[in-house]
């Protein structure tokens, strides 16, 4: 006797899944964040080094560096920067979809330590003497050239140093040299020689001091364009980095490259997954159809989990996903092979289905637990991309386990219980001649 109700339930459940997938897929696909290898952008791994002798790079220094970097990125207007501390002296910065990479890079790693020195490079004032948020781009009243104005904390200190400079002998050494990111070994006198040779000097400017100045306002007049002066003012306001940043790894991807890689890999995915589906349909017939259903749900589930976890999809991530489909098929194959074996031993469709499910469960369980165990260790001990990879592996094994085992029980179960498939082992891809008599 055929139970049509089971078939009806099958299609109702199927429709529910189809509706869920149909209604949410667009949101998931559009909402999933793409890595910079898929949408263009850049990533830099900085090694954090102390600026001054005796300074130690501690967790606090790293945290305040990250803060300073964050406020600088706000200057750039990038929406979702990723800045992470790695190990005990590294910071990884990922900026996806930056339009001007050169500017971004410069802006990030500039230490932005402003110093005022004499002609012998002795420090007279540094960033700690500046008032916070006091930098501003303005114009020089006479020439209308763009300049940067600063506010000092202490006017008397400025009077002291201008007096010191004024009293320098011989004539012509009464200059206040303003440097941005003075590096050890830089020398004003060398730079002056360069300047005479027509090269741009490393210091910003070196005005002559002709009187003692008791004031808080100081202006820097350099060879600025308006944009340069603005960006200098913003960097100074965002605050100097407490440390020096050395790039030890960097990668930048052009937007078009990313787009192309995404298109190609998604196309490859469609081909690969379609081929797997075709293979399952030919080899396993009705269970093959069920496998296509559970695998579709599997792909949906993975994307949904990724979306909910706020994960960033990268190129290797997509590759892992496509490959994961190949592996997720395994649980289906184990179950269907087992059912086929039971059918060949002469059991009825219903009891072969039950025995096949029961017996394949421990196999799938042990095989998957071992893989998860390996992945968990990789996750716990691995760093950065090894960790990310392990996480994808764990998610896909779990999702495959759930969809293959329970999906098969539910969907194939309804068909088997409907009794429509009774005495038709061909529907499972089993030849009548292979069936042994009980």
């Amino acid at each position: 006797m055929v139970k049509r109700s089971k078939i009806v339930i099958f299609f109702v459940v199927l429709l529910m899944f189809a509706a869920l997938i149909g209604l949410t897929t667009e949101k998931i696909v559009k909402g999933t964040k793409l890595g910079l290898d898929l949408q263009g952008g850049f990533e830099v791994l900085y090694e954090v080094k102390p600026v001054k002798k005796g300074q130690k790079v501690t967790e606090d220094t790293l945290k305040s560096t990250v803060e300073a970097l964050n406020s600088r990125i706000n200057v750039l207007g990038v929406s979702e920067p990723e800045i992470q501390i790695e190990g005990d002296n590294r910071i990884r910065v990922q900026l996806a979809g930056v339009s001007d990479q050169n500017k971004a890079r410069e802006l990030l790693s500039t230490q932005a330590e402003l110093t005022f020195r004499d002609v012998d490079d002795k420090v007279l004032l540094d960033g700690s003497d500046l008032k916070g948020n006091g930098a501003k781009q303005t114009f020089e009243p006479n020439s209308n050239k763009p300049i940067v104005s600063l506010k000092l904390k202490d006017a008397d200190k400025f009077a002291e140093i201008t007096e010191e400079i004024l009293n320098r002998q011989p004539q012509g050494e009464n200059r206040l040299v303003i440097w941005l990111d003075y590096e050890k070994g830089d020398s004003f006198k060398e730079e002056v020689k360069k300047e005479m040779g027509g090269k741009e000097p490393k210091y910003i400017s070196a005005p002559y001091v002709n009187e003692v100045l008791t004031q808080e306002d100081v202006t820097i007049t350099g060879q600025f364009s308006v944009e340069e002066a603005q960006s200098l003012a913003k960097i100074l306001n965002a605050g100097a980095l407490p440390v020096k940043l050395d790039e030890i790894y960097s990668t930048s991807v052009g937007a078009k490259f990313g787009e192309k890689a995404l298109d190609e890999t998604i196309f490859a995915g469609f081909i690969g997954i379609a081929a797997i589906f075709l293979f399952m349909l030919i080899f396993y017939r009705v269970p093959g159809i069920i496998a296509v259903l559970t695998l579709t749900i599997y792909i949906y589930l993975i994307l949904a989990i990724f979306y909910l976890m706020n994960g960033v999809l990268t190129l290797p991530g997509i590759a892992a996903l496509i490959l994961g489909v190949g592996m997720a098929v395994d649980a289906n194959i184990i179950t269907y092979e087992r059912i086929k074996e039971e059918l060949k031993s002469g059991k009825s469709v219903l009891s072969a289905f039950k025995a096949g499910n029961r017996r394949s469960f421990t196999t799938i369980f042990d095989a998957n637990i071992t893989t998860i165990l390996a992945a968990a260790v990789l996750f716990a001990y691995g760093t950065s991309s090894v960790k990310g990879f392990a996480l994808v592996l764990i998610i896909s094994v779990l999702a495959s386990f759930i969809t293959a085992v329970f999906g098969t029980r539910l969907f194939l179960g309804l068909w088997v219980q409907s009794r429509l498939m009774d005495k038709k082992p061909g529907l499972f891809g089993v030849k009548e001649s292979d069936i042994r008599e009980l």
Partner: protein
Amino acid sequence: MSFNYDFVKNRNLYFIISALLTAAGIIFLLTIGLKLGIDFESGSRVNIQANETLTNERVEEEFKSLGLEPESVVLAGNNDQANVAFKGVLSKEEIAKLNTHFEEKYGESPSVSTVTPTVGRELAQNALIAVLIASVGIIIYVAFRFEWSMAISAVTALLHDAFMIIAVFSILRLEVDLPFIAAVLTIVGYSINDTIVTFDRIRENMKLEKVKTQEKLAEIVNRSIRETLTRSINTVLTVIIAAVALLIFGADSIRNFSIALLIGLAFGAYSSIFIASQLWYVLKSRQMKSKKSRPVESEPEI
């Protein structure tokens, strides 16, 4: 299936094949080593996308006009892409210069990667240590759920597969980059899964009857391999389908990843059919022999 190949009888042949391949791999690794990509060597890589056909000479000229000396230039795509490698790390200023230059010239800024060797090496070292710790974990779990000899055999097969990918990459002079590590890790996960399915069947068949002789043991191993053979082949086929699709249609940057996967899948399937169970057979029959040699004192009633 009317298929009666004896998987156990020829075990020494498989062991010899694997031993020879392993030895060859060790020799290659010790002599010419791996061709390390810039992820492991200090260096820089620039990918240019042009809106016109390129030649090697033209690309080199372009870089020389910027004062840069490329180490190698490889054209890709429809000869409108170039992958250019540099020894040493390009400075921020140099990258800025070439970004601007090529953006003006071809309307598309290039992709630039620079790396100091420490980062890549640390990752590789970290992955290696993680795999070794994972192996210990697997041994403990399998020993607990199955038995010791199976744990040892499964992990040997796993390390065999992972090593083979590395060896083949050394022999074929393929470039090793960071996605390569991900591929090796994928195979570690896949290989253990594959082996456990066969062992699970052996465990089940062992429960059904009393195994007293080596002949009986061989028969069980053979039967278990045969019963899981369709599954082993079908599973590896579906994963291979996915990997081949990635290799042919996927982005350039994951090509080596796909090749590494294919090699690993092939060895993974090979080792779970021809190595793991045979290894277990050898360990198990030794165990049986040593038990037989001292039954008198342990069972006083005889």
